[in-house]
């Protein structure tokens, strides 16, 4: 009995301290990766632009000014104005808001669907696992962008419905990853020990399984953010993104495209903004992956 006691305490504390060690080490490695640091810096710049957009914008992004239509860049309008006389720089800043909001909040839906399904499938196994994973296969086989467009056109509504449309399609990767991690973690001695000690299944999942999947999930989410940003831009581009007149980079591209020969800056700047944000997140994601798991080679995510 006496010997069992330290043994019973150690699995949980050991698990916690080991994962903390991995993250501390990972963060140190991350800060030594120049591309990842550059990505982080860019993301911070975009985040600041998004949060403080109302303060930083010289003009109201939706206010139309018929005295200044389709102007080129000038001292008054740094990036020019669109065909309704709206200030392109102000719209770009507010567009960062839309993009980052969709990028981040969609992840909650993706995780909210994917993690429970992955945990259930991996931990319960057997028939339930089979059923859930066949479901994942079917959703996975769906041409995702088409399905999101279909859902979006049917759901209608505001920005929340965009999170939902993307989330309902994009959770399969998270579910697969979670299931795989659960399958490997449940073989670990400390989980066997927790089961032997009579730990309830939900408690074991939260206490022992979840901490172990945080790292890989973080990497996956870092790659899913730019994907969601891209999907939002695409939706807005074809006219079913955030409802107008709210500024979105995709909408700006679509609005500006008719004037591409006259005022190409209206298309160029939002396009560059989308490209830069996606690059930044990819750099960070690559860095995170290498930092958290040095065994993974630099292949495709």
């Amino acid at each position: 009995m006496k010997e069992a006691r330290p043994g019973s305490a150690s699995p949980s504390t050991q698990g916690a301290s080991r994962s903390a060690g991995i993250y501390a080490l990972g963060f140190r490695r991350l800060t030594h990766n120049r591309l990842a640091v550059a990505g982080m810096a860019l993301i911070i710049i975009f985040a600041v632009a998004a949060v403080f957009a109302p303060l930083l914008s010289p003009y109201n992004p939706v206010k139309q000014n018929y005295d200044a239509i389709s102007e080129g860049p000038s001292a008054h309008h740094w990036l020019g104005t669109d065909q309704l006389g709206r200030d392109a720089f102000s719209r770009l800043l507010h567009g960062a808001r839309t993009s980052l909001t969709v990028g981040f909040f969609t992840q909650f839906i993706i995780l909210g669907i994917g993690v429970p399904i992955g945990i259930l499938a991996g931990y319960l196994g057997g028939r339930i696992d089979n059923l859930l994973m066949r479901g994942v296969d079917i959703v996975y086989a769906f041409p995702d962008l088409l399905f999101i467009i279909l859902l979006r056109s049917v759901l209608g509504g505001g920005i929340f419905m965009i999170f939902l449309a993307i989330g309902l399609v994009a959770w399969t990767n998270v579910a697969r990853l979670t299931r795989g991690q659960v399958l490997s973690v449940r073989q670990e001695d400390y989980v066997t020990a927790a089961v032997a000690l009579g730990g309830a299944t939900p408690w074991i999942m939260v206490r022992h399984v979840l901490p172990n999947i945080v790292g890989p999930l973080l990497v996956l989410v870092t790659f899913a953010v730019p994907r969601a940003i891209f999907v939002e831009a695409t939706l807005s581009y074809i006219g079913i993104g955030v409802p107008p007149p709210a500024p979105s980079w995709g909408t700006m591209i679509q609005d500006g495209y008719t004037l591409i020969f006259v005022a190409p800056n209206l298309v160029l700047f939002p396009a560059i903004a989308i490209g830069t944000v996606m690059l930044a997140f990819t750099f960070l994601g690559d860095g995170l992956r290498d930092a958290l798991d040095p065994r993974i080679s630099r292949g495709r995510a």
Partner: protein
Amino acid sequence: MGKYFLGRLLWMAPVLIGISLITFLVMHLVPGGPWSREKQLAPAVIENLNRRYGLDDPLWKQYVVFLGRTLRGDLGVSYIYQDRSVTAIILQGVPKTAAIGLLAFTVALGVGVPLGMVAAIRHNTWMDYLSVQFATVFAAIPGFILAFLLIYVFAVQLHWLPTGGWGKPQQLVLPAAALAALPTAYIARVARAAMLEVLGQDYIRTAHAKGLAPAVVYYRHALKNALIPVLTITGPELAALVTGSFIIEQVFSIPGVGRLFVQGVFQRDYGLIMGSVLFYAGVIALLNLLVDLLYSLVDPRIRFG
């Protein structure tokens, strides 16, 4: 092995049925239908139209009818194009979508593999760094964004190429380039990693040691083995290319299947939506299967049980 692929082929049926069922339910999720226009039609007209197209039947019956027809290759009628069947409309779009997709894929392989090879052979030289940078940047930027940058440079500034349309060969260049960039980057990355690994093997050292010309060692001995990992990602790449093409079609006004889908969604043309979704899903499933098949042919070490 034949059994494995037969199983895979058979598994496609429930996947496609599942996809069609989900699509069907989503399409009918909300009230309204193909007749909800800005100019309201008289209720009696709508009723007649619904009866004519079987839209007043219970949902399950509509789905069963649809499934039966589809199995016979008949995707039903389009509500936009009253004079043609959905099958005919989709078949008209397929060659366009396929042309861009295949062109882009050929470019991706033709540029990506040599790029990765050169990077590996000239490991840690400026050529290597340059190709790695290229791969990193283009793997992150979607074709959709690249399309606008390409249009700006080659159509707006240089006036070399048209901004879009269909019919002339020069109209293929920009869409194919925009579509090819991403897979090119991935293929270059994987080819480089694979080549580096192969070049470290003993048999390569032996080949060099017995005095073979470097070109012979690289092409005859190394490339073949390095291509296997490239082939592995070909399936997902091709699938991504097929779905990615839909937005490229949108940007360059190419009348392919992707445009038909978007049109269908906006006009709530159930037949067009279903037809194009099934086309994309079917192509993706088939491509993945094909790549697995090739994979096992190329590498005799791989056995599917």
